[in-house]
């Protein structure tokens, strides 16, 4: 019934001879809200960046609706990337642009919209993330939580089919984290997008996911619903989700 939207096949990636992804296989279905969990530095963000070819794999393939991402160039790659919206770990806002300009940049540079249309979309998206009054501010004037929300507004500006979240709650206090989690759930429901989030924040993972996978030693250790993850006997997973210092996971 579910249709595979993203297919990751035997993905390998290493940095300075240190393997990070060691043969990852994963299918992501249309409409799913999948969360990839794992230790800091285990390759979650690296995996996420491969989904829109911000990184090239050493080996393996990523397919978007059957199209091999590695074989797309020029306009085809741009068109495929525009089907995605991404919230970066540090929000990655452009310092020299206002909030409104940040949110509207992708639309402006695509040259498919009139200025009035861009302004309407920017106002609509900023309202969705609760930042209507901050359109003319610069990123330096915003708090961490507000920056993430602007990043979110920018990610959804183009009405993407897939939203990628890289550590959406990292560096935020618990209340602001919960606001961001609510926003993600709300956007996923309202916009009916496929969403892929990477995080090590288990509160966030259980709140936004309808499927959780854990990345461990460069491979998928477990793949299941949040309930299955909570009740698993897998010691690696149990150590991670309960946050214990001792167990099979060795902190390097």
């Amino acid at each position, binding site marked *: 019934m579910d249709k595979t939207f993203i297919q990751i096949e035997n993905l390998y990636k290493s940095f300075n001879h240190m393997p990070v992804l060691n043969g990852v296989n994963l299918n992501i279905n249309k409409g799913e809200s999948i969360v990839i969990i794992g230790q800091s530095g285990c390759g979650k963000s690296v995996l996420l*960046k491969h989904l*829109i070819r*911000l990184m090239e794999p050493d080996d393996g393939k990523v397919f978007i609706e059957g199209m091999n991402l590695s074989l797309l160039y020029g306009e085809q790659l*741009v*068109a495929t*990337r*525009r089907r*995605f*919206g*991404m919230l*970066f*770990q*540090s929000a*990655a*806002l*452009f310092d020299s642009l206002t909030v409104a300009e940040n949110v509207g*940049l*992708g639309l402006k*540079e*695509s*040259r498919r919209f009139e200025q009035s249309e861009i302004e309407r979309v920017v106002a609509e998206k900023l309202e969705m993330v609760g930042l209507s009054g901050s359109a003319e501010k610069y990123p330096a004037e915003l708090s961490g939580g507000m920056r993430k929300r602007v990043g979110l507004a*920018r990610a959804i500006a*183009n009405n993407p089919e897939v939203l990628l979240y890289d550590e959406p709650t990292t560096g935020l206090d618990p209340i602001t984290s919960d606001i961001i989690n609510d926003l993600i759930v709300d956007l996923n429901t309202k916009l009916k997008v496929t969403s892929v989030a990477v995080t090590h924040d288990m509160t966030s993972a259980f709140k936004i996911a309808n499927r959780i996978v854990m990345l461990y030693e460069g491979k998928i250790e477990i793949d299941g619903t949040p309930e299955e993850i909570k009740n698993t006997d897998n010691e690696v997973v149990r150590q991670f989700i309960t946050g214990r210092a001792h167990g099979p996971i060795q902190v390097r």
Partner: protein
Amino acid sequence: MEYGVQSIGRRGVNFINRTGGLFILFGKFIVSLKDIPRSMGLIFEQFYIIGVKSLPLIIIISIFVGAVTAWQAAYQFKFIGAPLRYLGHMVGKAVIMELSPVLSALVFAGRVGAGIAAEVGTMKVTEQIDALDSMGINPIRYLVMPRVLACLFMVPILVLFSDFIAIMGGLVISVLGVDISTETFMSGFRDSFKLADFRNGLIKALVFGLIIGLVGCYEGFKTSEGAVGVGRSTTTSVVISCVLVLVFNFIFAIILFRL
């Protein structure tokens, strides 16, 4: 011994990587030129930031370059007993053929090349370049092309200003400090002035601008490892730009100013 050989080998590989990387970036820059019409706003913004804002610094260094050239020339003339009516000739030639293009380029590398490397490098480590890519915006068109074009056009324009101001600086010092008349200085300058020297100085400036812009962007794009990496890219960009400016200046001296 083994470590020394390894170190030389690593430096050799780095040199080849960097040279190849610069050529690839130059190729991408050339391809991106087709998007000039849709990027006029970005280009003029960089013309202002890179060119207009560099003008005060170029004016200040040019005054002193002209002044010290005139003073040193007068000192040497006295030493060998050469007539001071050739002072305008000497200052004009030195400024137009060498001092303005080279010193302006070196100052430009320090001010603008470092700025580009730091800005692009910071964008790299804070994932802003990834953000551009993720939105389907080509970072070469959005970041590199406007900056390199601005350097390419602005260095020659700044050298034009520098030529004029340095000669004026030389004239003022010659009149006030060396005690020759304005007419003597200017007639020496006019008699020796060749349009080809002036043109060659501007051709050099064009190439220096291209080098500074490309190296700044390349080092910025290569940045990793946070603030330390940004600092390293900035320094490397200035060092490589300055060395390349001086190496190309020597090559131009041989090609353009035949003995």
